[in-house]
Each structure stands twice: as C-alpha cells, then as structure tokens.
C-alpha cells in the first residue's frame, strides 16, 4: 500500500479506526488499572483514549455551540471533560468510546435506509443507442432529446421514457410499477426508463430523458414523502426542543442540591432524547422506501399513519374490481333485427366518451357487413378493414349523466339508456324486455335499452370482466379485519351479482359520481376510517373525501398521483392488502419505538436520580436504545 492509498483508506474508515483505537486504549488502560498498581499509567492511557475518541466529537460540539444548536455531542463533550476534572478517568473513556461506537453503528445502519432508493435509480443505464440519419450512435442517456429514436436490444435496459414505434417485446417494469410479470409492448405503447427489455429489439421515440422520466419523478416524490413530517414526528420534535434544555437545568440543579458531580454529569449524558427523535423517522422512511420498491407511492408519514387506522376499504367497481374493458355480451331485438338495434345505438352513442358507448360503437364496427343473420347474438369478429362497418354520425346528441344518451339520426329520435332515463321520459317497459334485462343483470351484466321514437326496439347487454385477483384481494382484506364495500353506478341487480362473485361485504348501487362522496362521508360519520380505491381520474372527488385515497395504475398519470394519498403504479389490486398491512405494521412500529424510547428515558432518569446508573452505564443504555429503534424501524425495509 502506498502513502496515498493509506490516506484514502484512513479517510474512508476514519470513524471505525478512531472508535477501535479509543476502544483498545480504553481496554488497555482499564486492565492496567485493574490488574496492576500502575495507577498513574492507567489514568494516562484512559485520558489518551478519551482524547482519541473525543476529538471528533468535541470538534462537532464546537460547531454545535458556534451555530447555537444544542446537540448530543455538546453534552457528551461536557460530560467527558467533567469526568476527567473530577478524576473519573475510566468513566470519561467509557462514555467517549461507547458514544463513538454507537454513532458509528448508527451511521452505518442509517446509510442502508438512505440508499434503499438509490438502487432504483441505478436501474437506468448511463448510455443510450440513438438512431441519427440511419446511423446508430452511443450517447449519454441524460443527453437524449425529446423525439429522438432510441434502439434497445433484447436483454437491454430502456434508457428513456418513450413510445414504441417499431418492434415488439416483453418488458419487465418492476423498477417502476413493482410488477414482476413482464408486460407486452408493441407499436404505440409507452415504455419507461429503467425497465428491462426482455425479448425483441425495440425502437422508441423519446418523450423524456434524464431527470424528466417517470422513474426519476417517482423517486423525487418518494423522497419528498419520506421527508414530510408525520404528526407523531412533529409532536416529538416540539417535545425534544424543551427536553434537552430541561435536563441541563436539572443537571445544574441536582449538582447545587446534592454536590454529586457524577450524578449531574450522568444527567447530561442521557439529556438527548436519542431514540425518541430517531425512531419514528426511521420507521416511516423504511416503510415508504419498501413501498416504493413494490410500486406503491405513499405520499408521506401523515398519510401512512392514517392508513394504519383504516378499517373499511371502498372500491369503485369499474376499472378497479373489474378490468375496465367493457365489451358487448349480447344484443336482443324486440320486433327489430339485432343488427339494427346495435347500429342505431352505435350511431346515437358515437360521440359519447362513456366506456359503455365505446363498447357499443366497437361492437357495431366489428359486425360483419352481410345482412342480419337471424337470431345469432354474438358479434363475429372480422379483422379485415373491408369487413368493418362505418358508423354514421348522429345529427345531434345529448348526454344525460349517469343515465344514457339521446340522439337524432335520419329524422328518428334514439334513446339509449337505463331504467331511470326511460322512467324520466315516460317510456313503458314491456314485460318481455324486463324479463330479458333481469336475466342478463343476474349475470352481473349491465343492460341498456334502445328506444326509437318512443318504442323500445331492443336491449344491449355489456360485460366488464372481473380482475382475476379481485376475490382473493377482498378475502385478504377481510382476513385483516377490514370491511369491504363496492361502489357503483350500476343497477342493484348487476351490482349484487358482481358483489357475490367478488365476495365483498357490502355494495352500494345506482350511485351518481357525487353520491359516492356522500356514501364515504356516511361511513366516516359512523366512525370508520375509510380508504377509497379508484382510478384517480373519474373518482378524484371521492378519493379526496376518503381518509386515504388510493389510485390505481398511476404510473404516467400525474393527476392520479396528485389526488391520491397512495398511488399504485401498476394496475395491480394485490398491492392493496400489502399497502394496508404495511401501513398497519408501520403504525405499530412507530408506537413500539416511541414506547421503547420513553421507557428507556424513564428508567435511566430513575436510575440516575437514585444513583444506580452512572456515566458509562447511562451511555451504554442510551446508545443501545438508539440502535434498537433503528434496527426495529429497518425491519420495515424487508416487510
């Protein structure tokens, strides 16, 4: 080893070397005094141990004093100097050594918590292959500009955010969404920096690079969340402001009354509320870091503490419990051909942006161009463009929110809607229509009536498949003692069928968007702490009303992340029981840490005041309690 590398080694490991040296000197000095009668030599070595171990502490103490902050290092320095002055060399060396050892271990363990997120950032490659005028060039990933085309080989990491313009592949998006299963990507699909291209080559048109990628935005938000103080933390900080000065006053007072120097110096040593101040932030930072790595963005300690109290989870049905991909399951004409019913409905719905409208228009386009084919009700898919029908525009159309649409075409009035809309317009429902509707709704389908010039000519049944994971997710929440509720705009019969399929405790049907908020307020008035799960866009108001708003599939949609208290990056319901349990575990962890800290301080104070605990023992217990709360908090990193 040359001189330079020795200096480097020393710099890097300074704290460990200083602690070890002071420990060895302390051990040597102590044994010399204990085994022999060389008391002067023993004292000298112990003083040396104090100086070696205490130099850095005293230096920081000096900065604390000049910056007018009252920290633990000032207190430790005062205690060590005091102990030497009254001739307690052993106590002085022990306090300094134990403190150095404690803070060395604290620094090391905290480093693990602090770097938990950096692993995520390291997922993004440093360079990107860019296509310039047909030539491939290697450039730093941060310098790729918007709309430049990046080529990613199979097995390579994607360096930028962008849209696929060529190629097809399976991409592992775990770093961004936490999902371990790869996602199929083809033309027009969005890909994220830091994800892994597993199969085919992809050409990507860049939409964001460097600090302007989804992954970097998420990590910035996670850090802001970790730094935001929870109510418990701010309470403790306010308490800590008074605790340290109070203990110093107590130490001075105790000396004035008892003339016992050891007693008042020991009070100084325990005068820093160490474990109490460190515990809650470590728990919260670890929990938020863990959640981030699993694709759950928690907006901060405050939200996390509230989420720990959740006892009711309300799910929006469409797109949350279901896949949100509505398709036409059946078309039935009453005195009119099925095909005509579908095309009438499609024309009326063409300009509507409702998900049911999209499904009807799609089904009409996919129908074969051949004339009506009798009683067959299932649309035959036909992929060729020639086989796709065009759907004419309506002359005009109006949306009746939560009920349906009214449009005009070829001089006819077409109404497509639910029972409520028909009732509003005074349209009678014949019993064979009602029978059909009841039968389809019993299967969990949603039925719309098609009315031409005041007569019901048909009905269309639409189906939105349940997510495969929905029943097990609901069961997992129930096992954790949490009530589950489904909120939907659908009619009662459809809702009941879906609710039964999912196994949910309760459902509320026929809700208009604003009704969902009222329902949540009702549960809150009953004393529930309510979490609401939705897509974060259509149900933003109810997410905001709930104690904890959980948005799903939030990667890439900033609005959802803004409104929610918790955002699931992937469309993965299974993260919900995980997030709720993690929040509960965090709440307990914070309580454990606060409890442990308060207990330690109480026992120490009692021990010091009754002279059972002296300097070294006080320091040992103090440092041990700090390490214990850090390690306890860090358990949440591996939850």
């Amino acid at each position, binding site marked *: 080893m040359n001189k330079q590398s020795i200096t480097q080694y020393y710099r890097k490991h300074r704290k460990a070397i200083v602690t070890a040296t002071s420990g060895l000197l302390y051990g040597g000095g102590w044994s010399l005094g204990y085994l022999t009668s060389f008391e002067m030599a023993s004292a000298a070595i112990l003083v040396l141990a104090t100086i070696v171990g205490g130099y850095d502490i005293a230096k920081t103490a000096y900065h604390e004093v000049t*910056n007018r*902050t009252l920290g633990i290092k000032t207190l430790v320095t005062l205690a060590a100097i005091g102990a030497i002055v009254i001739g307690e060399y052993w106590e002085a060396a022990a306090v300094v050594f134990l403190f150095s050892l404690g803070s060395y271990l604290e620094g090391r363990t905290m480093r693990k918590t602090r770097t938990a997120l950096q692993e995520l950032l390291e997922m993004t490659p440093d360079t990107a292959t860019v296509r310039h005028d047909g030539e491939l060039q290697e450039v730093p990933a941060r310098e790729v500009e918007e709309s430049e085309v990046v080529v990613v080989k199979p097995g390579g990491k994607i360096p930028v955010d962008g849209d696929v313009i060529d190629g097809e592949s399976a991409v592992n998006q775990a770093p961004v969404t936490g999902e371990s299963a790869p996602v199929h990507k083809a033309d027009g699909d969005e890909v994220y920096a830091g994800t892994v291209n597993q199969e085919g080559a992809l050409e990507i048109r860049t939409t964001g690079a460097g600090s302007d990628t989804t992954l970097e935005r998420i990590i910035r938000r996670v850090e802001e969340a970790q730094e935001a103080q929870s109510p418990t933390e701010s309470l403790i900080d306010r308490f800590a402001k008074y605790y340290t000065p109070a203990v110093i006053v107590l130490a001075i007072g105790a000396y004035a009354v008892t003339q016992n120097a050891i007693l008042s110096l020991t009070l100084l040593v325990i005068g820093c509320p160490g474990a109490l101040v460190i515990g809650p*932030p470590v728990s*919260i930072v670890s929990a938020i870091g863990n959640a981030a790595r699993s694709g759950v963005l928690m907006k901060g300690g405050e939200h996390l503490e509230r989420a720990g109290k959740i006892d009711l989870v309300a799910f929006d049905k469409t797109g949350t419990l279901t896949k949100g991909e509505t398709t036409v399951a059946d078309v039935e004409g009453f005195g009119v051909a099925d095909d005509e019913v579908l095309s009438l409905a499609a024309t009326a719905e063409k300009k509507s942006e409702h998900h049911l409208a999209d499904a009807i228009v799609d089904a009409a386009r996919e129908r074969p161009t051949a004339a009506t084919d009798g009683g067959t009700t299932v649309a035959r898919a036909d992929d060729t463009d020639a086989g796709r029908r065009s759907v004419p525009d309506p002359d005009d159309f109006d949306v009746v929110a939560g009920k349906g649409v009214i449009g005009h075409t070829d001089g006819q009035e077409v109404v497509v809607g639910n029972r409520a809309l028909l009732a509003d317009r005074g349209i009678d429902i014949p019993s064979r229509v009602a029978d059909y509707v009841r039968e389809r709704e019993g299967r969990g389908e949603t039925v719309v009536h098609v009315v031409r010039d005041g007569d019901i000519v048909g009905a269309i049944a639409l189906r939105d498949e349940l997510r495969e994971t929905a029943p097990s997710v609901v069961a997992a929440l129930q096992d954790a003692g949490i009530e589950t509720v489904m909120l939907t705009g659908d009619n009662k019969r459809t809702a009941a069928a879906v609710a039964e399929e999912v196994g949910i405790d309760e459902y509320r049907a026929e809700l208009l968007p604003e009704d969902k908020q009222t329902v949540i307020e009702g549960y809150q008035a009953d004393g529930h702490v309510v979490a609401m799960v939705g897509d974060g866009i259509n149900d933003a108001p109810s997410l905001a009303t709930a104690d904890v708003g959980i948005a799903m599939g939030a990667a890439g949609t900033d609005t959802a992340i803004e409104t929610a208290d918790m955002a699931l990056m992937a469309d993965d319901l299974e993260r919900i029981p995980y997030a709720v349990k993690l929040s509960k575990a965090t709440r307990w962890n914070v309580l454990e840490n606060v409890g442990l800290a308060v207990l330690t301080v109480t026992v120490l104070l009692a021990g010091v005041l009754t002279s059972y605990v002296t300097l070294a023992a006080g320091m040992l217990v103090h440092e041990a309690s700090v390490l214990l709360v850090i390690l306890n908090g860090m358990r949440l990193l591996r939850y």
Partner: protein
Amino acid sequence: MSDTTQFRVLDFDCPSCASTVERALSNVAGVQYVEVHYATGRVEIEYDDSVADPDAFVQTIESQGYTPQTA
C-alpha cells in the same frame, strides 16, 4: 441569479448533527435557503450564484465531519 444544488450525506449519525449542518450552511455567504434531512440524508441549497461558491458548501459539510456526495 438564484440557483439550487443538492448533496447527499449518507453518514449523519444523529438528528441534531443534521440541524447543525443546516445552521452552518445557512451562514455561508450567498445562501438563501437550506434544508437538511436527517432521514434521507438529502441536503438542498438555494443560493445566489454571484456570491456563493458550491465548493464552499462541500467544505462546510466536510468541516463538520461528514461526507457530501453529489446527487
């Protein structure tokens, strides 16, 4: 002109150490706003770049016994 910079200090060993560094940085000439977070180790500084030199921030943090990394 006002500019911002960030460092990461991974070796803070007590919350009060972070507050001391925060105080020390706020006393550096030209610094308009500082935030030091103990839990994440993130140091955020907003400064007047005609007065303050980012090297001075590094030195200030180092003189307190901690190792800043650029982040």
